[in-house]
């Protein structure tokens, strides 16, 4: 059995995980989700590479300790090297390179977005490829044709805002606080999803793209009329709940419609969903309905594998098996490049 140590520093989260070549997760540590910060005597800052620098070594120590192994047991080091913030990615990449050299073990580079889809494979406990992949988070909203775990072809993405970003910004417009996803979902529970007819961009268009910027503006106007310049969030009540519900329905509809179109266009029979927005219950229900209609199977991992973590880098096992090792001069690649 080979132990993998994986690092994730692509955006806000500093994370490390230990898993085996049999895809058993032995530990998965995410800095913001643990009480590790007590060790540095303060709150863990969420943003910036400096925070990753401060958090990474304790997070690695914790992951190795929780897995019940020592660094000497690690047989392969994996790291997300794309896409993300270059300064943040570099912290993980540099640490992973140093660890691989020091331990004398191979290094594997993993695409963070591909990792989100692979999290479905991890949770399913069986092969899910070929499949359609939907990654829907604060930073990404995109559809992929995944012929194998290692072959990701971008079918289309958002033209402007990511879906998770739209949730956060509409939560701000409605005065619902942060993080916006759960806040809007809670508010929407009491609202009428048909109260406002918000736009579903490209709904009747076969192209597999998303746009949520116009929807955000439509909510702004439905909320304030023409007086958006003196806008203050609406008071709690029926209208606010209706706005939240109608907005959520528009986002979820747009995602479900494009998934159904993509399943039809590609002939794929499985849909794998990753990213923080996949926690939304209305989205899960609509995607299930879309899959039922298209005769496809839906895969959504549990929440701890949806959001950013290092266990999703278990895709590294697939690369390791076929000898796809990273060069010693591996670099961070901020822009998304299909694998």
């Amino acid at each position, binding site marked *: 059995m080979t132990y993998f140590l994986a690092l994730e520093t692509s*955006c806000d989260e500093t994370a490390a995980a230990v898993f085996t070549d049999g895809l058993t997760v032995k530990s998965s540590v995410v800095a913001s989700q643990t009480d590790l910060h007590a060790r540095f005597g303060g709150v863990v*800052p969420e*943003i*910036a*590479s*400096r*925070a990753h620098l401060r958090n990474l070594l304790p997070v690695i120590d914790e992951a190795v300790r929780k897995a019940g192994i020592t660094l000497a047991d690690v047989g392969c080091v994996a790291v997300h090297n794309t*896409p*993300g*913030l*270059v*300064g943040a990615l570099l912290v993980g990449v540099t640490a992973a390179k140093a660890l691989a050299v020091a331990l004398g073990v191979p290094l594997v580079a993993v695409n963070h977005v591909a990792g989100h889809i692979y999290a479905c494979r991890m949770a399913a406990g069986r092969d899910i490829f070929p499949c359609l992949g939907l990654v829907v*988070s*604060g*930073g990404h909203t995109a559809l992929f044709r995944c012929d194998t775990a290692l072959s990701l072809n971008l079918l289309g*993405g*958002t*033209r*402007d*805002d*990511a879906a*998770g*970003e739209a949730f*956060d*910004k509409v939560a*701000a*417009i409605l005065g619902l606080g942060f993080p916006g996803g759960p806040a809007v979902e809670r508010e929407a529970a009491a609202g009428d999803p048909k109260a406002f007819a918000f736009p579903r961009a490209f709904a009747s268009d076969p192209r597999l793209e998303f746009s949520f*910027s116009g929807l*955000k*503006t439509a909510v*702004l*106007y439905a909320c304030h009329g*023409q007086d*958006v*310049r003196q*806008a203050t969030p609406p008071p709690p009540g029926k209208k606010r709940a209706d706005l939240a519900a109608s907005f959520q329905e528009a986002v979820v509809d747009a995602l479900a419609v494009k998934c159904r179109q993509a399943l039809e266009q590609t002939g794929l029979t499985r849909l794998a969903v990753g990213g923080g927005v996949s926690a939304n219950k209305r989205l899960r229900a609509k995607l299930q309905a879309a899959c039922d209609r298209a005769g496809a199977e839906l895969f959504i991992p549990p929440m701890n594998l949806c959001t950013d973590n290092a266990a999703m880098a278990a895709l590294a096992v697939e690369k390791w098996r076929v000898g796809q090792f990273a060069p010693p001069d591996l670099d961070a690649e*901020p*822009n998304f490049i299909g694998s």
Partner: protein
Amino acid sequence: MSSFTLEVSDLAGTEALGRRLGPLLFPGAVVALVGQLGAGKTHFTRAVAEGLGVRTPAAVTSPTFTLIHEYPARLPVYHFDAYRLASAREFLDLGTGEYFHGDGVCLVEWADRFPEALPAERLDVRIEIVDAHRRRFEINSHGSRYDQLVNEWVRTESPSVRT
């Protein structure tokens, strides 16, 4: 300081304005974008990138979560977003100082969140929502290179412009 204001009647007007700014920008130029949610900051940035020769302008998307997007073009385009940052320190921690003095063009959305973290010499673009479609642009330059840029830009715009 040079300045002008200009009203555009729709999104196409915002895009045309951005496309004309692109070619006027120089290595190390910093454009500070200010305007509320839905004003069109990202649309404007996409048009500037198009004016700078970015190959696929459609790939220019909001960096709110990802914080910085980089696009290759005639001059590299660095697209920042300060919306969800909590302090000027966090903004500087992104390495903004290096980007601002680099070889590319920096466009910063929500620049008014941390004015102290912006270079003194820059171009300010404020976008105000007039109604569902109309937007009012207020352009202000800081520094002689930007004064010159605004003077050139204003010559390419419609006669309704005042300087």
